[in-house]
């Protein structure tokens, strides 16, 4: 699903956030991404979603070389990815329902279909009762869950999650991870950046690990060889 081919990312200003990163996440695979604060986890995910472009190397998303995608094609790439952002990125002037419905509206989905899917997604993150609340009136964890609902509502082929449980209590974190697991079981590829090493251990999925922009652990090579 995702293949990084010797990817480096240098930010304007000269900081090298990623340095020669190679890995391959097979289709339908779930994996974790770890590393200290500032190791480059978010940068790695941003490269996949084309929020940043790599300085060197090539990224293949489902066989497509992202370097060859023009700016005006980016929206269509993003529509097939569900992204959970580290800082939620909710629309503050729309309520929870409208936030979650956004990806469907953007891709021109029918009205009845929208409402059915949004409710299903909200149900999965246990927020059906907050449907009409504005994001600003939600607790940190609730906002995070709205972001998760929005990422899964259009049933993307790939799910990227950046610290999806940073604001959640251990119990809820576990539940959310299990939600991702269920998605993975119906064929969605999932990549989750997380600090919660205990939970990661518990879930038992392959881990790739960054340290100062370099890959220092890559369980996926084993998996890749296997599949």
């Amino acid at each position, binding site marked *: 699903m995702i293949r990084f081919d010797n990817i480096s990312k240098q930010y304007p200003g000269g900081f090298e956030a990623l340095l020669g990163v190679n890995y391959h996440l097979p289709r339908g695979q779930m994996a974790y991404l770890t590393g200290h604060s500032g190791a480059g986890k978010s940068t790695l995910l941003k490269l996949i979603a084309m929020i940043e472009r790599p300085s060197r190397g090539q990224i293949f998303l489902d066989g497509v070389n992202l370097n060859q995608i023009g700016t005006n094609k980016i929206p269509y790439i993003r529509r097939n990815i569900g992204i959970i952002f580290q800082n939620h990125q909710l629309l503050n002037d729309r309520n929870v329902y409208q936030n979650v419905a956004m990806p469907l509206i953007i*891709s021109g989905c029918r009205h009845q279909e929208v409402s059915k899917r949004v409710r299903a997604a909200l149900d999965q993150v246990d927020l059906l009762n907050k449907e009409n609340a504005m994001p600003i009136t939600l607790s940190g964890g609730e906002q995070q869950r709205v972001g998760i609902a929005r990422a899964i509502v259009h049933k993307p*082929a790939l799910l990227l999650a950046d610290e999806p449980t940073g604001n959640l209590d251990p119990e809820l974190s576990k539940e959310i991870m299990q939600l991702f697991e269920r998605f993975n079981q119906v064929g969605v590829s999932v990549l989750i950046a997380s600090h919660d090493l205990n939970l990661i251990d518990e879930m038992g999925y392959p881990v790739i690990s960054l340290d100062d922009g370099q890959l220092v652990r890559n369980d996926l090579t084993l998996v890749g060889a296997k599949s």
Partner: protein
Amino acid sequence: MAKTPERGVKIQKNSPLKAYFLHHARVFVSSLGELTRRPIASMMTITVIAIALALPSGMYLFLHNVNQISADWDSSAQMSLFIKNNVSQRKVERLANRLNLRNDIESTKIITPEEALDDFVRISGFGDALNSLDKNPLPSVIVIQPIVDNQKPLQVSQLLNDMKKLPEVDIAQLDLEWVKRLYTMLDIANRAVWVISILLGIAVLLTVGNTIRLDIQSRKEEIIVIKLIGATNAFIRRPFLYTGLWYGLIGSLLALILTNIALSLISTPIQKLASLYNSNFELIGLSFDNSLMLIITSCILSLGGSWLAVGRQLSKIEPS
């Protein structure tokens, strides 16, 4: 991913064309909704636009009406040709008829020496002595009513020169020089209205552009978010363009209302003024065509302003 059967495709979509129009209609209405949700803020922008539009149309009307009034006064812009004494009465009549054919002369009127003397007697009030004259000392006079074209105030001078050159004519004299001066002033004022209209048109463009620009700025976060989840630039641009259109539309309607209120307010004093001069003058309002022009101009300017703002701003806002 683009190559594989997309999961997203499973979503039941409308037919593309229908979806497109539905979406446009929805954005068109919802952008109006946005404006009404912040009524005071929207009214500030709209009022500025309306003032900027009402002023040139008001001034246009003012000048249009003054032109109209002064057209009434054209009758005063007469020319008197004092005919040489040795020209016979018949020749004077022939000359008058000939002049009548000129396309810069509206009409001619002959004042015979007898009539002139009668007038003079009447004005001076002392007829007895003059009546006792054995020979009328006064010349024939042909009074010419020129056709005055506001756009060409010099034509009348030209006509005057022509008249002076006629062999039969002793003295040719324009009765009311001031009419020419008035036309010169009106001409300058007309040009001024054009300049002012252009300046205020720029003001409308900038006002809408500025409002939309700041609007975009204040929605920067939202725009980033919505780009992050796969919205195209066109999708993001649309509501702003429609908002600009609404500003222009409502602003021009308000301008029309303002202009017509102003018109009805000054109509009474103007009517009174006109009656003072025994003029059956009717105040001219904005015609349907004028109004339509104003609305269309306003919409185009506003749309242009928001287009500029959106173009400049949207490309600057990218998630990072």
